[in-house]
């Protein structure tokens, strides 16, 4: 289940290493509101992100990919596991050092409408981060920085004094990005950054994110449910199902030769923009089981076309099948 096996020896030291990350939300019930169970939103997740790379995290809604992203920033406290960022143990940070971490790791949210304070000007929203981390030496420097950031994301200097409601969804997402890069982070958690946008705007924002990565060498943890977007932007992709990673592989490899039956089913659901091409569709039966009471053994065995007895008894480890290609299945 260790990933170190897969990482080539020559690879640079990872920026972020996530080991056995688990987040269980308690369920309280009954007269005395005692804990009667828990939702294991994230269940022993392992991955690493290298500097300046994009790591995609895909899965159906509710599979725990957003929770994973937020745990990395400690916006949600993980229940257990290890988080290592540049050699620092993220879990043990608190107070001042935790806030300092938030200079290095930033987040972009899915909903560009809800993620900007409606009562602050764009300048104040972007500038607040500069002030917190003491990144502006003088008033003039502060304003120059904001103007520069706005121009970097394709907005104009005079947008500074306006309020979020005066902008379109795409522009707001650019503001969110400007805010995130203001503190020169090394890693940005992109929590479905384009799913709320029109397709034409999606492309613009994706291109902007790629440009910024080239310019500033930022690494992205790109959380999304849109497989084609993730394929386009990511170098490596992990597929999540019910709180566990079932497959990790370099992007092209995952999309051309998926190994896990769940990944196969997921990929066969992506529409092909050519009506004459017929694809063999892998249809899954039933719904995603409840994470409150997930199936025993391999979480996927209830819907898996190739499941056997062993699947409901033993949890398949995430093991390397090819170079950098890890899969959690007993038969692949």
């Amino acid at each position: 289940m260790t990933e170190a096996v897969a990482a080539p020896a020559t690879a640079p030291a990872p920026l972020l290493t996530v080991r056995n990350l688990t987040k269980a939300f308690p369920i309280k019930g009954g007269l005395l509101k005692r804990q009667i169970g828990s939702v294991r939103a994230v269940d022993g997740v392992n991955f690493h992100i290298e500097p300046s790379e994009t790591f995609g995290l895909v899965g159906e809604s509710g599979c725990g990919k957003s929770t994973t992203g937020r745990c990395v920033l400690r916006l949600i406290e993980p229940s257990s596991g290890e988080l290592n960022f540049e050699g620092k143990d993220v879990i043990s940070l608190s107070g001042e050092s935790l806030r300092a971490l938030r200079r290095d790791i930033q987040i972009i949210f899915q909903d560009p409408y809800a993620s900007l304070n409606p009562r602050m000007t764009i300048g104040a929203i972007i500038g607040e981060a500069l002030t917190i981390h003491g990144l502006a030496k003088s008033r003039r420097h502060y304003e120059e920085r904001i103007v520069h950031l706005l121009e970097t994301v394709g907005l104009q200097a005079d947008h500074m004094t306006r309020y979020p409601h005066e902008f379109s969804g795409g522009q707001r997402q650019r503001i969110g990005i400007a805010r995130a890069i203001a503190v020169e982070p090394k890693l940005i958690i992109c929590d479905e950054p384009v799913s709320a946008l029109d397709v034409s705007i999606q492309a613009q924002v994706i291109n902007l994110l790629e440009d910024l990565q080239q310019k500033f060498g930022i690494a992205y943890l790109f959380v999304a449910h849109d497989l084609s977007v993730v394929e386009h932007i990511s170098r490596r992709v992990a597929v999540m199902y019910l709180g566990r990673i079932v497959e990790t592989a370099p992007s092209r490899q995952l999309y051309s030769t998926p190994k896990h039956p769940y990944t196969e089913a997921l990929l066969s659901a992506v529409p092909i923009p050519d009506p004459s091409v017929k694809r063999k569709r892998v249809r899954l039966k039933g719904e995603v089981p409840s994470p409150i009471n997930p199936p025993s053994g391999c979480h996927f065995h209830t819907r898996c076309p190739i499941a056997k007895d062993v699947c409901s008894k033993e949890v398949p480890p995430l093991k390397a099948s090819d170079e950098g290609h890890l899969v959690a299945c007993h038969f692949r």
Partner: protein
Amino acid sequence: MGNYLLRRLIVALPSLLGISLILFVLLALAPGDPFGELASNPNVPPEVREALRIKFGMNDPVLVRYVRWLVAMFQGDWGFSFASRVNVDTLILQRIPTTLYVVGTAQILALAVALPVGVLAARRPYSIFDQIANTFAFIGFSLPTFFTGLLLILIFSVNLGWLPFVYRADLQATGWQWWWESIKQAIMPITVLGLYQAASYTRYVRSAVLDVIKLDYVTTARSKGLDERKVIVKHVVRNALIPVVTLVALQMPTVFGGAIVTEQIFRIPGIGSLLISAILANDTPVIMAVTFVFACLVVLFNLIADILYGWLDPRISFR
């Protein structure tokens, strides 16, 4: 902004005129008049009563009397109280400071309790603190002021004898003694009124903060590395205040009305008890003037609410 204010004030005029007309006609059509009591007095012959009615123009058509009242009003003549035998404006000006003192302090107390308690309760919903705050809020607005008022009087005035239960505007003491006395006599009415208001404000603040605290921009603020206290004050409370401001501003006139009960219990010589005694005495000019003052307060506080809105929420502009 200046333009906006001016336009709002101009718009307010017709509504005030309408309100005053309705009030006046209602009062004129209601049975009983200031000289009703004279009818049962054998020493006053009916002719004298009739002569008085003619002298004060009470036999004229309603609309004529309304126009006469309006003209006098504009000239600063608010009428004459038949019961107290002084001018109505003197009477109201005498009573207003007491009411403002009691009601105003009670409001400040209510907000001083409700804001921190509501915010803290919403920070950790369903925690022990939240449960306790909720329970007290529920008890607080379930108990009417006439009950809590009497309860306090029973405990602190009758049993313990610590506080006076009659509010006196004409305290005999001077200097420090005067301050001490006036604070002492105001404690109970302010507590009763303030805590009653605080109870409903607390629930309101809590739900307003709960609405905001889950929004993405609060998480954004946290992810910027802002410390928790600043996140709450700058990003949560300022946004959550918008609905609270409306509630408080629009409640103010109601509070003045609601204070009538409290004023009666503690015998506070405020504007509310003036209204009650005027109604009992059929003192039409006073009733008319006091209710009209209430109407002006409603219009005024609506305007204040709108201005505060624009200040709190940049999406609302003064157009």
